[in-house]
């Protein structure tokens, strides 16, 4: 059997291009995805700084910025269309190029094959393609950002008909919006290739002894996420194709009859704006779980590792991941309570949405129970995971309000929603990424990140995000609609300006503090403490091989799995952890 495998082992490529650029090694591809996400998150954060500038000081002139963006600051202060362009690109880049790439394609690519004991993904060539397709999508998205006529202003949801009518819809709705749609369509294709690979790898390439119920929860999360991606992205792709045709082909899938925009009469007829919303959110809701599920997996894994205890209720955790994944396909209508959709349909969606709260709550209880009677080690990875739990609760409970159509009448499309989704989808997922980064960095690069700087980074981030996003709930409760370039046009909002100022200042500090992370990341590549194979005394397969792992992960040894993924503090065992590959006798 060993002979058989050895005969077919991949040979490591030698040239620079094949090794680092067009690499088919899942580990290199994983790092490429992480790099892409780091570039993307930097862009996304800079855009949010620009937004926050305008929200804090709506009519302030910024000569320096006017220099860089002459059109965006035509006449002195930032123009409202520039604000909306920043908003659209920020949301799009964050959701697609950060929260889909880093947790799923980045860490997943690197660690899923290793954790299940495979030497590579099932289809390495396709894996390489998936990254480069995604990369092209990102380049096209950047082209949209710098398109003539400006970047699109229709938000990351690109509601039709605004996004379908072309340049008369407003600045940025010409070339910018077209490039946006094209980029999204390309992105869909790339993500599908990734999903396909993940699923096949888990189903077919697991090592001996690695039964499904011995997979770490991280792998379960990536697996479930891949199912979501496989079935959700085609729907967005279909919507994107139809939207593109409406824009450039003169069709009317989403444009109804008799529209008059800026006194110009359109000739389209019969299209349905709600159709786009349905297609978009059928994808969109699973998408938010695509963003958060890997973070849940990482958190479970890390909480267990650093409280030196098995994950509480492993089976329930797996069940909950699956339940969330499954139910997330039937809740999309909660984004459309006020859209003119049938109010009876709204009732059904309200119930399904409440239902998805149950497995989410179960996960939270299980995390708390995992800590119970543990021996917590406060590494940076652990700190970010604890932060994740706190944020997941904070963002989750507001879902109870938004899931009720009656209450949503007031809260829909206000800052309350912005607070809700930033905390639960945005920041919680980002905390999951940070936790994963501090945890796996030593495996990927052979050196530890600096824990001291990591802790400084953690405290700035944790305090910072609460200061940024908690106050947004109050803006929302006061009825502040989202996607407003400023609030000064409305008397009932004027008293909220100090909150905006506070949020902006918190945002500037928090975002600046991320420099610490980037510094730590690059500094530790050269100067970090050497990690050894298993610095955290973890159990899963990636910790049984060298750091960084050799080309085919396991070298000449064939990994054989004898234990479950979370055997910490087993009574009577020699050490307080039993690795999955330890011999059966390790367990008394």
């Amino acid at each position, binding site marked *: 059997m060993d002979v058989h495998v050895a005969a077919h082992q991949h040979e490591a490529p030698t040239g620079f291009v094949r090794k680092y650029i067009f690499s088919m090694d899942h580990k290199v591809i994983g790092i490429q995805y992480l790099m892409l996400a780091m570039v993307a998150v930097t862009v996304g954060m800079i855009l949010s700084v620009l937004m926050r500038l305008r929200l804090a000081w709506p009519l302030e002139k910024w000569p320096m910025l006017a220099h860089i963006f002459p059109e965006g600051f035509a006449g002195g202060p930032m123009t409202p269309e520039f604000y909306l362009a920043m908003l659209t690109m920020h949301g799009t880049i964050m959701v697609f190029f950060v929260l889909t790439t880093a947790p799923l394609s980045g860490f997943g690519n690197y660690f899923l094959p290793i954790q299940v004991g495979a*030497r590579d993904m*099932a*289809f390495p060539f396709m894996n390489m393609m998936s990254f480069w397709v995604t990369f092209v999508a990102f380049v096209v998205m950047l082209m949209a950002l710098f398109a003539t006529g400006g970047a699109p202003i229709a938000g990351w949801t690109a509601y039709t008909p605004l996004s379908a009518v072309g340049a008369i819809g407003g600045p940025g709705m010409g070339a910018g919006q077209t490039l946006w749609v094209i980029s999204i369509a390309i992105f869909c294709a790339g993500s599908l290739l990734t999903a396909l690979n993940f699923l096949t790898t888990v189903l*077919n390439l697991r090592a*001996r002894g690695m039964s499904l119920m*011995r997979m770490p929860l991280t792998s379960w999360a990536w697996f479930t996420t891949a199912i979501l991606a*496989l079935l959700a992205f*085609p*729907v967005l792709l279909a919507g994107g194709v139809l939207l593109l045709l409406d824009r450039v082909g*003169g069709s009317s899938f989403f444009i109804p009859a008799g529209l008059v925009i800026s006194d110009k009469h359109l000739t389209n007829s019969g299209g349905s704006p709600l159709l786009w919303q349905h297609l978009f959110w059928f994808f969109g809701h699973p998408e938010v779980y695509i963003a958060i599920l890997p973070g849940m997996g990482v958190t479970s894994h890390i909480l267990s590792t650093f409280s030196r205890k098995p994950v509480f209720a492993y089976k329930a955790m797996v069940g909950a991941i699956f339940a969330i994944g499954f139910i997330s396909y039937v809740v999309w209508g909660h984004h459309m309570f006020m859209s003119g959709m049938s109010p009876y349909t709204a009732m059904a969606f309200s119930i399904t949405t409440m239902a998805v709260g149950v497995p989410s709550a179960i996960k939270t209880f299980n995390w708390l129970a995992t800590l119970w009677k543990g021996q917590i080690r406060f590494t940076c990875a652990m700190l970010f995971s604890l932060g994740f739990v706190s944020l997941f609760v904070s963002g989750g409970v507001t879902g109870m309000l938004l899931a009720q159509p009656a209450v949503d009448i007031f809260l829909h499309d206000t800052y309350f929603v912005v607070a809700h989704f930033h905390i639960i989808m945005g920041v919680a997922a980002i905390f999951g990424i940070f936790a994963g980064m501090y945890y796996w960095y030593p495996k990927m690069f052979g050196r530890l990140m600096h824990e001291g700087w990591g802790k400084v980074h953690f405290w700035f981030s944790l305090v910072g995000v609460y200061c940024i996003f908690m106050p947004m709930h109050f803006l929302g409760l006061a009825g502040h609609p989202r996607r407003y370039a400023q609030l000064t046009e409305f008397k009932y909002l004027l008293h909220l300006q100090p909150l905006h100022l506070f949020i902006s200042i918190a945002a500037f500090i928090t975002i600046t503090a991320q420099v610490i992370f980037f510094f730590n990341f690059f500094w530790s590549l050269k100067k970090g403490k050497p990690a050894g194979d298993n610095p955290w005394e973890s159990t899963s397969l990636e910790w049984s091989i060298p750091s960084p792992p050799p080309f085919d992960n396991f070298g000449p040894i064939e990994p054989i799995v004898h234990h479950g993924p979370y055997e910490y503090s087993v009574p009577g065992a020699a050490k307080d952890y039993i690795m999955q590959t330890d011999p059966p006798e390790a367990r008394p």
Partner: protein
Amino acid sequence: MSVSTLELPLGPPPADPRVSLRTSLLGMKLALAAIGMLFTAFTSAYVVRHALDPDWHAVPMPRIMIANTLALVISSLSLEVYRRHRQERLWLTLSQAMGVLFVAGQVFAWRQLQSRGVYLSNNPHAAFFYVLTAAHGLHILGGLFALGGITVVAQERRFRWLEAASLYWHFMGALWLYLLFLLFGMN
């Protein structure tokens, strides 16, 4: 007893990605699930749009599409014959030829409609006709590439390639029949 202590039998050795038929077929099935989802989304758009529109004019089916359908069916069948008795290269060639014929026929059908003045922007049925047949056509081109690959790829990959390509090709045939029904069977 906890899950982790269950002594599970050590399963079969993990399949090597490069040799496993199972892996190829699974990958293909998953790809088909995604493609199925794409066309499901188009279908739901079609149904919604159809129900909404007072000026939905059904475009009559270009005659040549009957021949195209026939070509695709023959292509699928002959590929199946080849898959079962792999000696007869002729069957494969026939399958490939019929596939090419299908594409040519579809291009002709498009041309014909355009010469009759039926465009994407005319009416929603025409728009869906173009979208669905084009999306299917692109997948068919991919399929032709796969059929072409059967005799080109390295010997040890050939069998898997053939099996996966056949699965794909039959799916495309079935999808075509479904699209015909959707576009013309319900008016």
